[in-house]
């Protein structure tokens, strides 16, 4: 559905995106994981046609370049910044966008989406009166108003409460289930691990690795760490087979507690860049 080939984008001497290549298929949630300034938002801006790449190509389904009007009709974007008219109500925001996209029955469509993100009871309230989490949910709904098939979500859970985060992640998973291609940028590895079918690790404009979470961990995450507490003290072992190590510790006797630290995407990032994701 989304085909990105070797795109590059620089601003003066700063290279924001450097030879990024990936594909995103229908029904897939593709995570772009990286720290702030990794180039995720620039990649999204380029993929949605807001910026023209210096080189490389992007295709949205059969419609081609995202800068073509046909392709734009397929693209849904929830920008990192909450992009809503605060003086308008939640419904007015969605109805306006539905009309701009030429949707039939814009009010019905707006109410459908408000229901989907749990804001229908607040439909008539001005956005300015909403909490940050509610605004995030409406920001997501606004991206879906024209029923797009290629959805770009740029840090959609930034700064939201746990309740709204759960609601947003549920909606994103539902979108994938409906057969849409979703690109999801985040610097929260837990989110990426929870919902993404595949993940691209980005840093300094480049994609360092792409794969499923399990693949990335297996390839770059390193060993699990098994810690065995006994009367003799704490014993830590790095191993690719943690269960076998635990079995061995229990067989030897004297263990009072056993803990396993499995590698995660944080470890993958550390292994790939030598830095922690949140540095």
């Amino acid at each position, binding site marked *: 559905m989304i085909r990105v080939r070797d795109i590059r984008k620089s601003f003066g001497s700063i290279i924001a995106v450097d030879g990024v290549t990936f594909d995103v298929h229908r029904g897939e949630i593709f995570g772009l994981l990286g720290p702030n300034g990794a180039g995720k938002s620039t990649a999204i801006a380029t993929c949605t046609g807001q910026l023209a790449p210096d080189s490389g190509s992007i295709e949205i389904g059969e419609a081609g370049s*995202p800068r073509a*009007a046909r392709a734009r009709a397929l693209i849904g974007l929830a*920008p990192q910044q909450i*992009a809503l*008219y605060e*003086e308008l109500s939640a419904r007015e925001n969605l109805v*306006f966008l539905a*009309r701009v996209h*030429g949707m039939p029955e814009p009010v019905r469509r707006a109410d459908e989406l408000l229901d989907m993100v749990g804001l229908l009871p607040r439909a008539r309230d001005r956005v300015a009166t909403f909490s940050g989490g509610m605004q995030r949910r409406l920001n997501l709904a*606004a991206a879906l108003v024209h029923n797009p098939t290629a959805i770009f979500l740029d840090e959609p859970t930034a700064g939201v409460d746990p309740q709204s985060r759960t609601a947003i992640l549920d909606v994103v998973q539902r979108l994938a289930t409906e057969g849409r291609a979703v690109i999801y940028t985040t610097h929260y590895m837990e989110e990426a691990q929870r919902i993404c079918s595949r993940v691209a690790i980005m840093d300094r404009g480049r994609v360092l690795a792409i794969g499923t979470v399990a693949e990335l961990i297996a390839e770059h995450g390193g060993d699990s760490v098994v810690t065995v507490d006994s009367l003799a003290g704490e014993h830590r072992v790095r191993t690719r087979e943690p269960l076998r190590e635990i079995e061995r510790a229990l067989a030897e006797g004297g263990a009072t507690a056993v803990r396993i630290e499995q590698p995660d995407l944080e470890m993958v990032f550390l292994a790939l860049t030598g830095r922690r994701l949140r540095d």
Partner: protein
Amino acid sequence: MRAAVFLALKDLRLLMRDRAAAFFTFVFPLAIALFFGYVFSGTTSEPLRVAAFVEQSSPAATMLIKALDEDGGFKLTVTDARAAGEQLVRRGEAVGLLIVPATYAEGIDGVFSGGGAKLGLVVDPSRRAEGAMLVGKIHEVAFRTVFATVGDPVQFARVLDRMEESLKASDLSFTDRLAIRTAMSRARTMSTQGADGSAATQSQSLADWKPVSVDIAELSMRPGVPANSFAISFMQGIAWALFGAVLSFGSGIAEERQRGTLVRLLVSPMSPNQILFGKALACFVTCLATEWMLVFAGMFLFRVEVSHWPLMVAVTLVTAFGFSGIMMLLAAGFRTQGGTQGAGRAVLLVLAMIGGGTVPLVFMPPFLRVASNLSPFKWAVMAAEGATWRSWGMLEMLLPLAVLAAIGVFGLTVGTALVRRSI
């Protein structure tokens, strides 16, 4: 096209939701028009400004003018010619023109013999309330001047008594004494019962009796001369209406950019040209709405007359188009809302001021009138005046309309190109 219309409607809704922007677009121009209208008309607690023209000098006329002049309720300007007085009224510099006819002195002499003095008053038809007040004041002063000769009724009776005694002691013939007694008797009756001799209380008889009558005429407003100060101030208000609209929508692009909604619009099926068209359309509609609001308010509240309706329609359309172009130039110049608002205020304020927003074009000194040619507001105000009190024809209207249209074409073309580059 439909998407651009929806965008314009959204912007208009946002304008109405932003109380400050709505105030400066719709209420402020009206307030300015009223403020300057009243300032120029002199409708305050200040003395009534009156022009006076004496057709033929006489002691009675001189006494009346002197009394009016000394009365605190008037600020009198005596003119040498009736036309000069009428001109003051037309310009709103006087509420009315008092005409003291050549027959005034004769009328005063016959005030007790069934005749009476007559005065003429020409008033500005749009200032009838002040005109009525003026008539009342003139009666009051005229009454005083006549009674300066007769005093109050009690004193007048004493005077008559003294005259009666003098008459008895005189050596006049019987017929002469009879004639004088008859006149004195009539004067006594008038002072106690009224001029028509009907039974009435003393106070009523004096109150009802008017020593002079005032014939009121409304001044016909000549084309080329404003009917009143509001004819000027409401057209002046148009400058501020346009100022508010351009400032509100000029920052629209920057606002969309800053709130992130521009990104949404750019990834929608709307082209950048359609987005900009929607922005310009919202500005155009607002300019048009505020212009007509002022025209109708002037018409219904202050009798500001539109001399040529088709031209007025053309003026409002072309003006709205021209200022939509200015809005686009403003939008192109700055990327942030603060920058657009700040610079917009600074530049537009100066242009509005020299363009007739504060000092009306007709009152401007020559050098300022020349400088005002640089201001698009000047052409808008002038065109609006042309379709109202200036009573211009198509030929005279051609220049301001052409200038405004050219500004619109330039602004929309260059502004759109620049904004497109920035988004």
